[in-house]
């Protein structure tokens, strides 16, 4: 088999549709008789619902119904299921689709209005009479963990829902024997996520069959189906869930949301299709956020600055509920010790409830937090011991010859972490070289003549990718000779329709234009997990490879029969199976597919099952570890504090690249997301838990004019842990980016400036640090 597509920068198959306005996003779906839903949301961060009177709203024009949770009892009741149960969580900590008694964050859904139009439904919201008694508010996790703090849930006796612990080696002994110990505290700010498409759901009950169809802007349509089926007491087979084109995910859309259930319940209750399209204001309030953590850490190193151990504690803000169980704090914990070969570490994370919208994974899922603190600790060592930052890292990294390397850490499921492959020092050297660190001081001096401060920063990371248990795919050759790939893995822009097609086209020797990928529709493929954790290339990609190879073997078997040739003499090329060296002796795949599609009374070749098709599931029992280093230069205007990133270089190893165009796109987008977290994105709340930056004028997403061009270098160390040698690429851009930018700012401010332990860093903050430095 020749490899024509795997590894090639082929333009995407989904593009012509999306470029011409022919995509189908949830909001583009229109069904006859469809009603529009809006939610009445809590305006207080913590309160008890005393009464709700919809009567005035019900008489307004276009209004068809106003529902509270009590109106749904005949279909379902109780709190939402947890996406990922955890042994430390005795019972799920989730909300109801609509709040029943207590509300615990601003934006929690209380009631819904159904109307002929969205505008009319919004008109009616103000007419619903709602009486809420205010309860004391936990506005941040450190407040929540303090003695005498109010309770985020009035019925709970503590705001701490779990304490996670990860340790390895004898940390006390390592610290006692170490030449140096340094401690720092770190404050990582919560931000929003902000896919450009907000969430959306359409639910349609089929009156004749009793089936329920749901279209949802989700990364996890099959999870939605499974949990909804359980909630409604129905069989999965009676619920069809589809994720159509989705306008970006980045984590929050992996949750199963109360609104998805509420819209389904409302559709069942009223018997009409119901559409809810989240608007940006709701997105700010009710879509999950991430990253708020407070770390107190101590690092031990030897006299040469080699990192030996880390210990400490984290206070993690989980928001008002734990819809995703403990996956987020657990992922942060599982990200230690990063690229460093530590003799010991001992870390704990207190998971705290607050009266803010829940936190769940956002691009990187706790890994950027771990990378931030680890990289800052490496910089601390360099600063205190007056060593080059690169040198501390080189001395501390896991070395290539140690692979596979058992870190001593544990994965979220408790299994030991073993890095599979790679050369971490090489990635660092690559960015040091490519950004021309050697010439940096000269550039710094030049900038100084313009009154600007230039700084150079580095950061590295290791990322577990390809999370299990599996994804699956089916590959079928139609009698027309077309190849149809079906998978449960949903796409939110990652180009699966192209990468998966590349894999299938290679295995079956067909032109890429002959392959169609259909995804994330429970009627087309039975199972799926989630598009999260940089896992789809590894899991779905490998599944397509497995299924396509089965189809290939089958085609060769049938062709051998037709051509009366030995299987070993056959090859598959150009949509045909042919005899090696005798291209005229061939049989097209379409013919084989037709034979296997059967004709009445005509037997198909013995020993072959009908249908030129196969299904494959790749069970990802072991993770594939991607890694990389980043370097950047920042230029600071010391008068305004304005910080521009002027250069950005990435070295990344995500194993074998299926499509470099797509991988580069993932990395660039990821880095920019990280730059947003480092410099711009600040989701502020006041002490009453009220969001203060809930518009795009106040919450600053990274814009085109401020973002740098990003130079990317790939190292390709195939992962030995899957048939295609891939590692995930979706989050590696983001994970070290904040640390990299902050390291550069620190460098620009000079050795006398305070050590930076937080982000995002505002221009005002920078001016303040410069002032302090000058004093």
């Amino acid at each position, binding site marked *: 088999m020749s490899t024509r597509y795997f590894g090639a920068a082929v333009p995407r198959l989904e593009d012509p549709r999306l470029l*011409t306005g022919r995509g189908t996003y949830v909001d583009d779906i229109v069904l006859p008789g469809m009603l529009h839903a809006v939610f009445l949301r809590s305006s207080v961060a913590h309160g008890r619902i005393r009464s709700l009177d919809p009567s005035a709203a019900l008489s307004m024009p276009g209004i068809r119904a106003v529902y509270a949770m009590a109106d749904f009892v005949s279909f379902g009741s109780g709190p939402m299921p947890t996406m990922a149960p955890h042994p430390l969580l005795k019972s799920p900590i989730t909300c109801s689709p609509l709040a029943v008694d207590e509300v615990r964050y601003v934006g929690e859904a209380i009631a819904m209005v159904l109307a002929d139009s969205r505008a009319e439904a919004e008109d009616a919201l103000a007419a619903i009479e709602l009486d809420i008694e205010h309860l004391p508010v936990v506005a941040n996790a450190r407040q929540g963990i303090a003695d005498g703090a109010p309770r985020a849930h009035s019925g709970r006796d503590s705001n701490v829902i779990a304490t996670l612990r990860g340790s390895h080696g004898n940390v006390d002994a390592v610290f006692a024997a170490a030449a140096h110990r340094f401690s720092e505290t770190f404050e990582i700010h919560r931000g929003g996520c902000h896919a450009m498409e907000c969430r959306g759901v359409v639910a349609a009950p089929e009156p004749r069959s009793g089936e329920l169809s749901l279209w949802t802007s989700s990364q996890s349509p099959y999870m939605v189906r499974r949990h909804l089926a359980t909630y409604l007491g129905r069989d999965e087979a009676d619920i069809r869930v589809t994720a159509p084109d989705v306008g*970006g995910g980045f984590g929050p859309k992996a949750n199963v949301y109360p609104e998805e259930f509420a819209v389904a319940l409302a559709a069942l209750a009223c018997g009409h299709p119901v559409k809810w399209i989240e608007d940006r204001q709701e997105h700010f309030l009710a879509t999950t956020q991430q990253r708020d953590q407070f770390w107190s850490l101590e690092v031990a190193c030897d006299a040469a600055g080699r990192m030996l151990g880390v210990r400490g504690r984290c206070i993690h803000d989980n928001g008002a509920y734990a819809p995703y169980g403990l996956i987020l704090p657990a992922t942060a914990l599982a990200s230690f010790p990063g690229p460093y070969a530590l003799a010991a570490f001992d870390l704990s994370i207190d998971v705290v409830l607050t009266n803010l919208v829940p936190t769940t994974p956002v691009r990187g899922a706790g890994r950027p937090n771990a990378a931030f603190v680890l990289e800052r600790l490496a910089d601390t060592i360099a600063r205190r011991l007056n060593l080059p930052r690169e040198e501390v890292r080189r001395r501390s990294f896991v070395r290539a010859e140690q692979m596979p390397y058992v870190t001593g850490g544990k994965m979220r499921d408790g299994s030991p972490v073993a890095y599979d492959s790679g050369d971490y020092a090489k990635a660092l050297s690559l960015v040091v070289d490519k950004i021309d660190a050697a010439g940096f001081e000269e550039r710094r001096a030049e900038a100084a003549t313009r009154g600007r401060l230039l700084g150079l920063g580095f950061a590295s990371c290791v990322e577990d990718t390809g999370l299990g248990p599996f994804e699956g795919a089916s590959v079928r050759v139609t009698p027309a000779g077309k190849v149809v790939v079906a998978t449960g893995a949903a796409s939110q822009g990652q180009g699966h329709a192209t990468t998966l097609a590349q894999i299938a086209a290679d295995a079956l020797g067909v032109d890429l234009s002959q392959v169609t990928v259909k995804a994330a529709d429970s009627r087309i493929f039975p199972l799926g997990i989630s598009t999260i954790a940089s896992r789809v290339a590894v899991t779905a990609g490998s599944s397509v490879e497995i299924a396509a190879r089965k189809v290939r073997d089958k085609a060769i078997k049938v062709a051998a029969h037709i051509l009366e040739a030995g299987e070993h003499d056959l090859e598959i090329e150009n949509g045909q199976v042919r005899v090696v060296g005798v291209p005229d002796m061939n049989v097209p795949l379409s013919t084989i597919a037709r034979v296997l599609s059967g004709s009445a009374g005509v037997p198909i070749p013995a020993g072959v099952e009908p249908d030129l098709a196969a299904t494959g599931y790749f069970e990802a029992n072991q993770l594939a570890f991607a890694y990389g280093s980043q370097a950047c230069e920042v230029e600071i205007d010391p008068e305004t504090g304005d910080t521009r990133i002027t250069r950005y270089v990435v070295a990344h190893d995500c194993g074998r690249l299926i499509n470099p165009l797509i991988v580069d796109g993932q990395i660039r987008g990821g880095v920019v997301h990280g730059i947003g977290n480092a410099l711009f994105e600040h989701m502020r709340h006041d002490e009453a838990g009220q969001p203060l930056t809930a518009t795009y004028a106040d919450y600053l997403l990274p814009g085109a*004019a401020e*973002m740098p061009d990003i130079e990317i270098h790939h190292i390709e160390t195939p992962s030995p842990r899957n048939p295609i040698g891939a590692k995930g690429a979706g989050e590696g851009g983001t994970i070290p980016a904040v640390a990299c930018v902050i390291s550069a700012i620190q460098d620009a401010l000079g050795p006398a400036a305070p050590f930076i332990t937080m982000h995002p860093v505002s221009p005002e903050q920078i001016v303040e640090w410069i002032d302090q430095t000058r004093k």
Partner: protein
Amino acid sequence: MSARKINLTVNGEAVEAEVEARLNLADFLRQAIGLTGTHVGCEHGVCGACTVIVDGRPARACLMLAVQADGAKVETVESLGTPESLSELQQAFRDRHALQCGFCTPGMLMTIEALLRVEGSPTREEIRDVLSGNLCRCTGYQAIVDAALDAAEARRGTR
């Protein structure tokens, strides 16, 4: 509540419709005449996903009422090219991988289309400046800038 009859040209075709006064142009295009290529990402004039060209100039369709488009010439992403025959700009987007989820893309395309009509040889900086009015969470912008430059070059070549 007031409803009005409006007559306008959308992508070269005459459209007549009766619209409620408060209906904005984005919702009109999407809901009333089924042109769902124009996207809505914020409804407060910042994200640029709804950008269309009105009487030759780029405009936020979420900040214009449909009634205000009475008599206007409106161009949307649907006017550019077809899947079988992409415009130069669309082709450049594809070649450069300047779109991922595709949600911001129609607004990006219409902004750059409007730019290229007034400035045939924009610099990288000018393109980034103009794109400051369109948010994208997927691409990091670089590929979009590259695509705009490619398209400008292609257009100059064919002129």
